[in-house]
């Protein structure tokens, strides 16, 4: 255990403080000439790579449809119960699709379990981190906000496949 020095035990150099202040200012001066790591957000945006878990989005195929078959696994695995799905029947070969797919962004904790559990690679974490709203209703993202063209998600999908 370190023994606390009392004022009466200080040496002269310690008592006058000035040398320590000068040493501290010296470190400040050195850092002024080193490279900067701070970003000027929002003028400069952070561009994450494929590993980043931004808000979850639905993969939109090139024909405009969603990959999702509304199996409900993401909704089941979601620890925060953020995902609400209503399935319905379609004429396509995969006969089930989400008539309603909603993620409550106030509930989402960005854990990525939905993406991990998805058997269709239909829900992935995007790079988007700018999520703001002014009321609870706006926090519920429907298919209009979730569907993202597959071209924009290539980096994440490749990252996921590399990990598997």
């Amino acid at each position, binding site marked *: 255990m370190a023994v606390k020095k009392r004022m009466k035990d200080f040496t002269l150099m310690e008592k006058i403080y000035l040398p320590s202040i000068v040493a501290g200012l010296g470190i400040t001066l050195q850092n002024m000439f080193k490279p900067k790591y701070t970003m000027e957000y929002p003028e400069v945006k952070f561009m994450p790579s494929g590993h980043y878990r931004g808000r979850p989005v639905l993969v939109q195929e090139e024909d405009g449809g969603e990959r999702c*078959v*509304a*199996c*409900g696994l993401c909704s*089941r695995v979601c620890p925060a*119960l953020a995902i609400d799905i209503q399935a319905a029947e379609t004429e396509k070969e995969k*006969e089930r699709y989400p008539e309603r797919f909603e993620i409550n962004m106030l509930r989402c904790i960005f854990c990525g379990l939905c993406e991990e559990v998805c*058997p269709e690679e239909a829900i992935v974490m995007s790079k988007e981190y700018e999520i703001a709203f002014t009321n*609870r209703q706006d926090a519920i993202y429907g298919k209009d906000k979730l569907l993202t063209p597959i071209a924009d998600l290539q980096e994440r999908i490749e990252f996921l496949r590399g990990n598997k």
Partner: protein
Amino acid sequence: MGKFILDGQEIGFKPGQTIIEAAKEVGVEIPHFCWHPSLSVSGNCRVCLVEVEKMPKLAIACATQASEGMVVHTESTRALSARQAVMEFLLINHPLDCPICDEAGECKLQDYTFSHSVGESRFTEEKQHKEKRVPLGPHVMFDGDRCISCSRCIRFCDEIAGESELTFVNRGDRVTIQTFPGKELKNPYSLCVTDICPVGALTNRDFRFKARVWDMSNTASVCPGCARGCNIDVWVRSNEILRLTPRQNDEVNSYWMCDEGRLNTWKHVNAGDRVDCPHIRRDEGLSKATWDEIYSKASAELHSFSSGEIAFIGSATSTVEDNHLLSKLASHLHCKNIDFPRHIVPGSGDKILRREDKTPNAAGALAAGISPVKDGLGFEEIMVAIKSHKIKALVVVEEDIAAMDEKYVSALKQLQLLVVLASNFNATTELAHIVIPAATWTEKNGVFINFEGRAQRIRPAVATEQMDRSLDGFSMSRLDKFGTKFDRWGNYKKYDARPAWRIFLDLGHLLGLKAKFELAEDVWEDFTKHSPGFHGITYDDLGETGLTVKKELHKV
């Protein structure tokens, strides 16, 4: 009763019992797909293979009779490897489409793949494809790819429904199920095949894709479709009924229920025409009112008539509790004119389950005293007496009298006071002066007594405005447990309706009736005190499957 050894444990068997049946009785489940307790043995799925000592080959437990001193191993190396091999064969052509399949979550093949298979497929070739999305009949959809050819549905139609409609066609891995030429799967019990199908090959067209089974809660209840009172489960998500399934009760319905009961007894609960709050007729028609308003108006008006001018019409679709308080109220007002209309549809019954009496509680209504007191008028007589202005005030419980017969409409128009308890707006509420929203059979506790005198409980599955799923003993799904009013699935519609017995209790208090009940259970207790044959029987005694209280209670 003989004894044999199953996995080192000595168990008893009755003569003629198979290994699988004897094991089931002591709570050991030998895996099975094609075997069903109430169907004949076909022995084609081979997953119940067990090792029997001194037998040269493995034997199928569903078709091998137990015999004295037999030594059976279900978990030996040979039995296990055979079971895993069978699972591997069954999965060769079974598509991996669980995400799309509606059976997922209650699928026997899914469960057994998890518990009894090696977890990997060695099959790299193209799977055999068959017809998908084939409507076999008005209610059932067939997916050939998923079928594992267990033949349960075929045997059900042959043996239980008594109408051979389905059969296997083709051979080997091309075998599939079809209806006989020119036939459809449309026997009155056709939807039972979706319950017994161990995979998602047969699905309920009414329920397809509506919800995942794990998102719903299920509540043990009784079907109100006819006097049989089949035991059922009510499946609810976001306070909305999505399907009914039969619940096993060997005394009543075995494993089955009819399509009519399954599909047509609950649609009105979710319908848009629910009576959502009390209504009073004013000059411009029916308009919304508060509960206090209708109670004070109804009691004041009833008070202004003499007991001979009032009549009460109970209902065999309401519970014993509802009818008990109605008869209590009637006798408090010294009213002798009390009865309920019968809903007998000749020719609509059969020897399986369906009864000609389309109400679930005619015996209960009679036991609760819904029949004319000495010198009182019966249902038809009441309607005649209304026409001749003898009866001026009528209280109707959950019956759409105006829709029953054209001649009743003109009679009802003569009334000075018509109080109707109804769950949905109908032809009778159109003529009513006061409409009181009554809870449906899925929104209240109560008892139905079927034609055999069996008393069975119904339980609330859908919450009304006065109820809370978490506080009122509802069966709860995960979504119910954690939902808030800010979640779309937690912010569901609740109707402002009350059970008929509570309405009569509140109304009775204003008319000077001295009775105090908090719960439906208290009303039942009061009923049992006054009804010989029911003494001392509590809700707990009735339990999940009910109790046959009294044979031959009456003839409807």
